[in-house]
């Protein structure tokens, strides 16, 4: 039988190839924005306006209106039609908003308010706190879930640890790519991003658990076979299911991405990337890691290193 886990270090390498740039991007973001990602007004507090004017407008002029009113930290983006603008700035209270609207009308005529969002600074802090708590709670629950699922298996610890490593892998892939997207195309982390992330965390362990379940089932049946072969067999047996399931979810998500509304594109992208990463990590990370553990490869490697250095 073909040994699927033989090339395991290549698989790990591929994962690192995706994760490391993400980590670098997070580092750059941290230096530039003070957080690993560009944060949206959900977390920082602020005002977002999407306005559609009757006539074409100049973003520079809009920007100068805002700076004139004392809102220097403002970004103005125009859509392709040059009539629709997205403006982001510090929290505008009602009076300031009225003034801004007045100036804008004076300059460019009437406009339609397509989307307006105001989030007070205190709310931003609360959202940040709640998001952190939610991520911790979800990780804790999934952790207990893994412990529970493998409570009767010999070597439960290693199954659990490998599943968690795969989960962290998925989180790093999704957040890393988002950080890169933040640097390049200005994507911002919002409450929906946290939602997608938590969903990915929940989904990530599923594939892993299905494969691990099979390994658990096959181990006593195939006594005498090398662990790597048992593992490969289990992987192949569950591969269909993992791929077909993911494929269905991916079909749906791609449909939403291509044909759905613009407001949830980022949300769906994170889900999509997370789900794909989840499938990859359970097959190519979690399971090979079990083999690494079983063969004590790290200990052997360390022993070799120490032997050489002494």
């Amino acid at each position, binding site marked *: 039988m073909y040994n699927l886990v033989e090339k395991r270090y290549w698989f790990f390498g591929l994962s690192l190839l995706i994760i490391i740039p993400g980590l670098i991007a997070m580092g750059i973001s941290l230096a530039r924005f003070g957080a690993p990602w560009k944060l949206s007004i959900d977390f920082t507090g602020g005002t977002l306006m999407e306005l559609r004017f009757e006539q074409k407008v100049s973003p520079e002029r809009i920007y100068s209106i805002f700076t004139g009113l004392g809102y220097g930290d403002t970004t103005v983006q125009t859509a392709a039609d040059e009539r629709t603008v997205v403006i982001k700035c510090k929290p505008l209270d009602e009076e300031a908003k009225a003034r801004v609207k007045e100036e804008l009308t004076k300059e460019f005529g009437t406009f339609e308010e397509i989307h307006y969002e105001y989030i007070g600074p205190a709310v931003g802090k609360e959202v940040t706190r709640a998001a952190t708590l939610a991520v911790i709670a979800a990780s804790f629950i999934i952790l207990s879930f893994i412990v529970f699922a493998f409570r009767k298996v010999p070597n439960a610890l290693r199954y659990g640890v490998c599943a968690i490593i795969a989960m962290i892998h998925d989180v790093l892939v999704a957040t890393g790519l988002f950080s890169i997207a933040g640097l390049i195309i200005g994507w911002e982390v919002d409450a929906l991003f946290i939602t997608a992330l938590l969903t990915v965390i929940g989904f990530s362990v599923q594939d892993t658990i299905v494969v691990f*379940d099979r390994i658990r089932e096959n181990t006593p049946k195939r006594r005498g076979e090398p662990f790597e072969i048992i593992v490969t067999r289990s992987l192949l047996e569950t591969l269909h299911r993992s791929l077909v399931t993911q494929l269905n979810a991916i079909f749906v998500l791609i449909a939403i991405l291509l044909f*759905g509304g613009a407001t949830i594109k980022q949300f769906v992208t994170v889900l999509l990337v997370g789900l794909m990463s989840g499938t990859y990590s359970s097959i190519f990370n979690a399971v090979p890691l079990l083999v690494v553990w079983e063969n004590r490869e790290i200990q052997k490697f360390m022993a070799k290193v120490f032997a050489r250095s002494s």
Partner: protein
Amino acid sequence: MRERNLFILLAIVLLIAFCLWVDLPQTQALNIQLGPIKIYREIKFRLGLDLKGGLQVVLEADLPPGEKITAEDMEAARNIVQNRVDGMGVVEAVVQRQGEKRVLVELPGIVNPDEAIATLKATGRLEFVEAGTTPLPEGLKINTTYEITPTPEVTPTITPTSEITPAVQVYRTIMTGKHLKSAKVGSDEFGRPEIDFELTPEGTEIFAKYTREHVGEFLAIVMDGVVISCPRIREAITEGRGRITSEKGFTLEEARRLAIILRYGALPVPLKVIQTRVIGPTLGQDSIQKSIRAGIIGIIVVLTFMLTYYRLPGFLADLALISYGLINLAIYKFGIPGLFPGVTLSLPGITGFLLSTGMAVDANILIFERMKEELRQGRPLPVAIEAGFSRAWTSIRDSNLSTLLTCVVLYWFGSNFGASMVKGFAITLFIGVCVSMFTAITMTRTFITFVFDLAGRLLEKRRWLLGI
């Protein structure tokens, strides 16, 4: 066994027929009247603000740091906001307490959000107004002489109709809310609810003088320019205490509400806006159309895929998936009696639903893959079917459980502040996973057993039908 299966099949068909009826766009309500049994339930899609367009505001009690507000006071503030919202005449408006010191307001289809916000947070203005010899009807908007602050009053005090009449009557204000010390619900000698109030020394003086001169006339209690009650002055009130009774008698509820307005309308908690979301009607419309299109395309792809990949079982799974969709939509419109009234759909909510359709076939896939494996190992078809369902169960349970747990966390996260979007996703995903357990397991199993009973031999010969 066979009979039992037929029975389940019949139950499923009935359930689907009911869901189909609920899902039909023209279905408005369930209305059953059979002798003593009377059931009425409204059936409709509830669309969130991101789909319908409108205004969402979170107001917070503006207190000095360290100061706490009692639940009672907050409820009073909510009541006042509710009154103002009612005054705007918005259909399906929501006014909800959130946490300790917040009120969430949702106003669908609002045209001028800025004006609406100003109306909501305007500090209430309570007045005692001279009404003369005829009582003023409750709910009437009137013009009074008194202005508390020089800031422009947002609530229009002149109704459009009265603008046309040349001489607008201006009622004289006798006292304002600042002259009121307390107000509480009491009862008169017959035990009927009334409102007992107490005035400040200054108020006592004004009121004593006025009531002495106007016994038998009417006095209007006016909140934000709207008459809320118009009792008759029965006797001179000199010691700064009085009571308000109604000609037709208050219910306890009315009395309580009025007391709250008197107490806190006079000195309401100042509210500040901490979060605003405005979705223009065009964006909402656009989102609905795009989501429906995306959803239909996604589901068609999944249906086609299942059919080509798993053949006959795939077809049965498709039937289960379509039923899954129908049941879900029916739950959104109809709710679950006794549990919740229905689901408000938002964009993330629709995503959650679509994502759960992917999950719904997952259970089927686990089962079918197991079945195929067993068949390849040479097991007879009935054994393979049985093994497929029973062995796949642990995996199905585990993966659904982890999703459900995630939903719970997400729901908590979404409840934490004004982000009902996150909640919508958690709710639809949760419902979806629960429904999928039923459709993918019970339903598919019934279908497969039924088909096998009918055409078992045919299938043994034509195994390609089973996707092998």
